[in-house]
């Protein structure tokens, strides 16, 4: 019976996040792949029982993603108001 | 074991009735934002007391009464300020 250790899955998540973030072209897809990379990193940290590091990085990663989202929306609105988008 | 939970629920309910909280929310009950006794005051009281019940030191009757009073006061005065109701069309 085949057994899969969990860190292999976390490594695959991190590779998917990194290569997917390189290959995508739109900014929103890059940030979604950044979320996948953060998932892999947090699960790898928590699988080796550094729970305080996992808790702090789960706060900081996702709050950072929300702040990047607000900045992205503001940037696109300013570009549209100047007429540079099309 | 279960008596302290019942005491916390009764304490929260009595102080909620004194503070004039409604018993049930408005009639399309699954999407009303009204704060009432059965939701979320009782849920808050049971959840807060479960944290204290895990540490075996503070699981007595007086803690249950204080938790009930605290949850009723919290849901009456502070819940709208801590977690405000969203505007129309606002995100998280």
């Amino acid at each position, binding site marked *: 019976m085949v057994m899969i250790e969990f860190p292999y899955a976390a490594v695959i998540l991190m590779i998917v996040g990194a290569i997917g973030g390189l290959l995508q072209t739109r900014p929103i897809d890059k940030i979604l792949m950044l979320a996948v990379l953060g998932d892999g990193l947090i699960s790898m940290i928590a699988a080796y029982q550094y729970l305080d590091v996992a808790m702090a990085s789960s706060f900081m990663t996702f709050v950072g993603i929300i702040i990047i989202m607000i900045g992205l929306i503001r940037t696109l609105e300013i570009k549209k108001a100047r007429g540079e988008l099309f | 074991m279960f008596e302290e939970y019942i005491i916390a629920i009764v304490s929260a309910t009595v102080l909620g009735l004194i503070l004039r909280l409604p018993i049930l929310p408005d009639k399309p009950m699954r999407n009303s934002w009204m704060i009432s006794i059965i939701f979320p005051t009782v*849920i*808050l009281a049971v959840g807060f007391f479960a*944290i204290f019940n895990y540490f075996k030191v503070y699981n007595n009757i007086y803690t249950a009464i204080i938790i009930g009073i605290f949850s009723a006061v919290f849901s009456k005065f502070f819940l709208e300020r801590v977690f405000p109701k969203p505007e129309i069309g606002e995100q998280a």
Partner: protein
Amino acid sequence: MNEIIAITIGAILSWINFVIIDIWMGLPESPGVRGAEAIGKSIENRGGDLGGGYFSGNIVCSPDASAGTLLASCGYYAFGSPEGGLIAALFVYFGNRICADPGYAGTTGALSATILIWAATYIGINPQNFIVGMLLAALTIQGIYHPYSSKLIGKMARKMNRKVIKD
């Protein structure tokens, strides 16, 4: 081989729990936030049902009864007693209020899952079977093929009188 049967029973129980409570609390009726509406329209464009699409979008955008079931079984497994489920209900309520949702579905799901796990320990199904079972249940709704699962959810919602409200 006994564990596989236990995981299967846990998956079936948690699937029934979260689907029934989510439909009963009106998730297929209307999208709560704008992102859920976009996900529902996207699933409908790919050949699915609109009510099932709103269901999937609401599960993605706020912790509903699926998150309540998962976190209640996690709390029961870690604390070793039903207190973990009650604490999970408290956390799910706070998370629901952060995500702009009234929070009825999450807390009801967490409390009913706590009762269900407490009853299931007497027939030999442990909480870790429920954790893996909830993951399998979420996989069948969100991960396999979206048009089929959304059509199934739409059929169940029409049977339980929770149709899409059009305005």
